[in-house]
């Protein structure tokens, strides 16, 4: 994996404007009872131009809800109740649908898992990629075709000229994923969201796709929000990493800080799951023997946290800065001894 250097951090006196700024984003899902379930709990996150930011979470943390809500379309019956997503000086969530449609695909794009479900099975893939360029860039048929072919070469599909005319079912999973990446990047988007895009792939193919994504993002100067359940990927691939739990970010730090000096007990618990040391795991986790319960008040993680104190179950901790660049939502963050 490319050990990508951090995007040049200008000196502190020059403020860099974030490319995308998500503030206080709240999304609820209706439930059978009267109380709707809050799936994103006032989420704040800023993405700087050209950076790859990883977002790690277990299933049910709200990863896909976040990916879709940033584009103004929360999945299923979900509803955005509060918050804003500022991109290019405008709040995306306030834009009328036609305006939003222009942004999606052109300036903002998503790479999804399960690429075959995303492609139209009755149209050759070359045409589908070219259609993106025709719609969003307004280029002619021939130019669009030329761009599509160049993009297929970029994503390193073997024999791209012939693959232009292939139908999705004729491609393997890895090749279909490359086609979806080609569609996402053909308009040179400023911001790409990758929603677990490599999870269905075999590891050797995943390695190739990750290398490809990071090279293309660098070539096109795109920023990326890389959502995954595999924390290992983010250790090698992202500039900054955010840890999502139950709809809120519990820790956000530079890659090196997060992995070498993790501060939130949840992050330590996640990492201990990879340590293959029962001793370390016992130190950071509370065994789950009975039925699951949710903690609504205070810190949502307190129910699973071995360090939890009475205050944790009552008062929601603030998202506070521990060190420059290192943020944590915890009353009792773990510090190097």
């Amino acid at each position: 994996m490319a050990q990508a250097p951090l995007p040049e951090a200008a000196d502190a006196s020059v403020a860099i404007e974030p490319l995308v700024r998500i503030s206080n984003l709240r999304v609820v899902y209706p439930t059978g009872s009267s109380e709707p379930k809050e799936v994103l709990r006032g989420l704040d996150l800023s993405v700087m131009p050209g950076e790859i930011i990883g977002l790690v979470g277990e299933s049910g943390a709200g990863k896909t809800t976040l990916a879709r809500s940033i584009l103004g379309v929360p999945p299923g019956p979900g509803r955005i109740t509060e918050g804003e997503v500022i991109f290019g000086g405008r709040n995306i969530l306030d834009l009328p649908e036609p305006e939003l449609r222009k942004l999606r695909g052109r300036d903002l794009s998503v790479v999804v898992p399960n690429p075959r479900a995303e492609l139209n099975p009755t149209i050759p893939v070359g045409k589908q990629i070219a259609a993106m360029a025709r719609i969003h860039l307004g280029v002619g048929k021939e130019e669009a075709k030329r761009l599509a072919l160049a993009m297929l070469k970029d994503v390193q599909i073997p024999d791209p000229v012939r693959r232009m005319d292939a139908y999705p079912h004729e491609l393997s999973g890895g090749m279909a994923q490359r086609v979806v990446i080609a569609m996402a990047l053909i308009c040179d988007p400023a911001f790409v969201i990758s929603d677990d895009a490599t999870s269905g792939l075999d590891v050797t193919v995943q390695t190739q796709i990750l290398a490809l994504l990071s090279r293309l993002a660098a070539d096109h100067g795109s920023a990326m929000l890389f959502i995954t359940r595999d924390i290992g990927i983010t250790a090698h691939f992202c500039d900054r990493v955010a840890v999502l739990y139950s709809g809120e970010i519990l820790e956000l730090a530079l890659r090196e800080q997060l992995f070498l000096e993790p501060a939130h007990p949840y992050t330590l618990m996640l990492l201990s799951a990879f340590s293959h040391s029962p001793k370390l795991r016992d130190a950071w986790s509370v065994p789950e023997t009975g039925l699951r319960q949710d903690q609504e008040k205070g810190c949502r993680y307190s129910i699973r946290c071995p360090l939890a104190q009475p205050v944790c179950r009552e008062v929601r901790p603030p998202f506070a800065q521990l060190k420059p660049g290192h943020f944590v939502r915890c009353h009792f963050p773990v510090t190097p001894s």
Partner: protein
Amino acid sequence: MSAILTIDRLFKQFPIAGSRQVVQAINDVSLSIEPGETLGLVGESGSGKTTVGRCIVGLLDPTSGDIRFRGTPISGRKDTRRALTGKIQFVFQEPAESLDPRMKIGVSISEPLIPFKLNRAMRERRTLEAIKLVRLDPALLEAYPSELSAGQQQRVGVARAMVTEPELVVLDEPTSALDPTARAEIIDLLQRIQSERNTAYLFISHDLSTVRFISHRVAVMYLGMIVEQGPADTVFNRPQHPYASGLLSSVLLPHPHLKIESSVSLKGEIPSPINLPKGCFLASRCPFVIERCRIEMPPRTDVGPGHSVHCFRHEDVARTVPASDTFTVFMAEAERILGRKPVVAPIKLAEPANPVDTRT
């Protein structure tokens, strides 16, 4: 010690409807498992590892080859299979799909005991033991699968396999649908049960990092063949097959400085198992390829105690890849980073409005 399971020259082909061609899912697989041992079977999708597991438990009949349990041939024989009821068990990948959603957990766990015609008290006692073995609250015996988390469902899957006190359990990707924490719990559980009962495991997985820690020996499959087989630490520290080396280098450990070095970067994808190439199956993707590889299949070569590889250039592969035990280094790092004693003392922190640029 005599092996509990031996497989000798196993082949499995699937016919393709409306065609004379066949899918060659398993091509000449031989392996053995000792009592109390874990053999890790790794490979990408389409490598045939699940098919091997299914042949062992009798869900599939091999096209040819020999499968023996404690020396007795078992494949395709109903009578010996019946005598072995409960001795070989299976744990599937998707816990939610392998449990009947309308069956209470207790009923699911006790189901494998039906052929033993135990009395009710005995059956209940064994069921209770099994749920305690996997560290679940016995109250959950009355729950339905949908009330449990995925990790708990998979623990039920393990309890159901263990209730007959098997000697061999085939675990087919038992943790790949699970979150990391649930995965670690299942692995701990399996290792504890193994040390208590001396159960042998065939652990089928594409998760190499887990395989490294749970397995005594490991077999790497590619296109229906075991390309390298040997003691887990030997194979992981110094792989001699280019595919094993390439596969290992794709492991992403959650540590920004630790990467498994390899001179092999695998391009492209696993070819179709319908028209297998002549010669070595990896030739089209292998950076070590020579003319001979495209013509003849490299034979099995012994390269160390219990360590064998199918590659003409295995010496060159071993030479170019620096021997290293990245996994052990990683464990020591984990100890250093996570072994901090937590101090529960509040720290005064300033709260920013929105953490914008945090790099300065």
